[in-house]
């Protein structure tokens, strides 16, 4: 009887012990391809924010992250395609230029700002932009990893690919540039004068495979938010 009481007490203690164990929280895991980078160039964990850029390990580039703060990076601003020579100047809509906006304006302002410690921003190639397409996790979302690429509209985004023949309905406009539409996850050639959205990219030095994004040392914060 005493032995049974002891075993019972042990079973009860084990039960209470299991119940008192701290409940495991959901685990943070790194994304294989994308890393959040702050305005100052610091690396963040996937659950931290806010962030201004995303390091794309696959393409070895930095992506500009759009905002909704009416800054030059606001995701609602649109731009006509213009590289300083070719294209159509000032046919998009933004608040940060006295006239209307084109892609050259955004590149100039972003380089002046030194976003994420980088000052060589450019339009992405069609291949780079196309590589971001992925099925949305909800019908309300665009065809992109919206956990990293926020404020992306279900619309067209300019690439650097230009001098492309236009489709029949735009033929009168001559040539155009390639845009990726994140609503449908497809690419189109649009007239330069079209107002489309833009996500800029910057190349990382080839020596920097890992996230040293500027000459400054990158601080890493793995703390969970």
């Amino acid at each position, binding site marked *: *009887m005493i032995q*049974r*009481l002891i075993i*019972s007490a042990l079973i009860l203690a084990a*039960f209470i012990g*299991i*119940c*008192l*164990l701290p*409940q*495991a*929280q*959901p*685990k943070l*895991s*790194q*994304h294989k391809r*994308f890393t*959040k980078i702050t305005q100052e160039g610091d690396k963040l964990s*996937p*659950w*931290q*924010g*806010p962030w201004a850029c995303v390091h794309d390990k696959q393409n070895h580039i930095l992506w500009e992250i759009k905002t*909704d*703060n*009416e*800054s030059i990076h606001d995701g609602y601003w649109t731009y006509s395609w213009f590289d300083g020579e070719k294209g159509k100047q000032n046919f998009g809509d933004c608040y940060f230029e006295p006239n209307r906006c084109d892609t050259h304006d955004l590149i100039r302002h972003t380089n002046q700002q030194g976003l994420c410690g980088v000052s060589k921003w450019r339009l992405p190639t069609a291949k780079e932009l196309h590589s971001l397409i992925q*099925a949305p*996790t*909800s*019908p*309300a979302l665009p065809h992109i*990893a*919206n*956990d*990293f690429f926020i404020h992306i509209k*279900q619309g067209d985004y300019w690439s650097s690919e230009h001098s492309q023949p236009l489709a029949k309905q735009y033929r009168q406009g001559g040539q155009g540039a390639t845009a990726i539409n994140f609503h449908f996850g497809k690419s189109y050639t649009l007239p330069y004068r079209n107002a489309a959205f833009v996500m800029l990219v910057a190349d990382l030095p080839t020596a920097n495979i890992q996230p040293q994004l500027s000459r400054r040392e990158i601080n890493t914060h793995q703390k969970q*938010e």
Partner: protein
Amino acid sequence: MKTFMQRQTFIVLHVIAIVITIGSMLTGFRIAIISQDWLAPISSLIPQGAVHSWHLGFSIGLTLLVVVFIGYTIWAPFRSYPSIYHKLINYLGYVSISLVVLSGWAVWANFYSHEARSIHQIAMWLMVSYFILHAWVYILQKGRGVFAAILPKRLKMTHVSAVLCLVVIGGFFHTLTLNASHQLDVHTIADTTFIEIDGQGNEPQWQDADTFTVTTIGGANFENGSTDVSIKALANQYESYFLISWQDNSKSTNHLPLLKTPTGWQVQENGFYRFDERTFYEDKFAVMLSDGCEAAGDKTYYSGDKPLKNKPKNWHGKGYHASLDGKVRDLWHWKAVRTNDMYLADDNFIGPPSKHLKGKRRYSAGYQADGKESGAYVMNWQWYSAKGISPKRLPEKMQSHQAVLPWFGSTPYQSAQDTYPIGTFLPSVLYRSNRFEGDRADVRARGQWRDGRWTLELVRKHNTHSKYDVPLQTGTCMWVSAFDHAQIAHTRHIQAIKLRYSL
């Protein structure tokens, strides 16, 4: 000459009783955890997933067993000579099991559910006490010998046949009870009749419509977690109207307010970090529609902290909504702050579990919003952290008790302009536009709170032709849930409410 129950027959019934009682207790505990946080420590010891269906199955088994045992005992009682202690404990068992069975069925049938749920919980604890005082004390007294006494030594064909027979009968009743539903007759109105969606419900046509009242239970903040929801429905050739009313003593529009503290802006919260806010939240109401009518939400609820294979854990341990059968269930989510001034309910759906995004702390499985072309509410913080936030925008003119900050009545946050004194509150909800556009805006809705009751009017086309909506027609099943300033801790009911149109 009096007939007595054979020992082997008793042993077979006893084994079945053990299995069913343990099954119903384990599934019952999992259901109880949804609304009783103090039970969370045992979460890792009990099953997860679609436990409601299993619980109903065990309830059928227990009911059949009670009926068979009573019938058999009247015809041929089992002769045993327990001690006075075990005799008394057996009475505790008879009382607790009878109460558990009766109160459980009352909850299922929407028959004094509120009271029945309380009785069910008390009876369940009595049953647990009985289980320990009966089984454990026998084990203490007799040791391993008790297992030899309660396990069948040989099975007769009659026992096997009887058990199979019980399983078949149980299966039949399980299907029957699982698919039973209440009925709501939809009153027909002329196409020319105008029903204003204003939360008043004062059009005379509402007086002609039948009222169905369902007691919803298990929510946070309601008195004893329960509120009665009354529902009326009207339909013309094109649209269905619903007038829904429920008791809620407090009008809650204090939705995650932002408070200026000596260390900066802070979100006022009590559980929001775990996505289970229960203090600083708006009142809400949800209507789910499905073309299936299976009890407890037509297979859309999976309880536990990790109920879905290959999907992440949830933060609150309460479970996920998802449809593993691939079918879409429609979900209208009216929110007293975020959608009421849009005159809309958020048109959402429950579909297959979505892909997990590594950059998002919250995973919502199959609970998703319909697509929209534009329009949204957004939260007034640049990035949420429990330690502090920076507001996204500041009001151009500060107004007290403002629940929503309009985008065009505010400017982007700049620390230089943040001269607000400590103790200032800011709204956490920003309207980017005055309503959604597109699929997500299919349900017009407006709620009014008066004298401790919310009255909500909703209208939607019978068929929106959206693949994320369920058509409203005879046979469409409906469930309703009320939220009293709670993010996820809503009330619920078991049987579906089946719509019947006379059009």
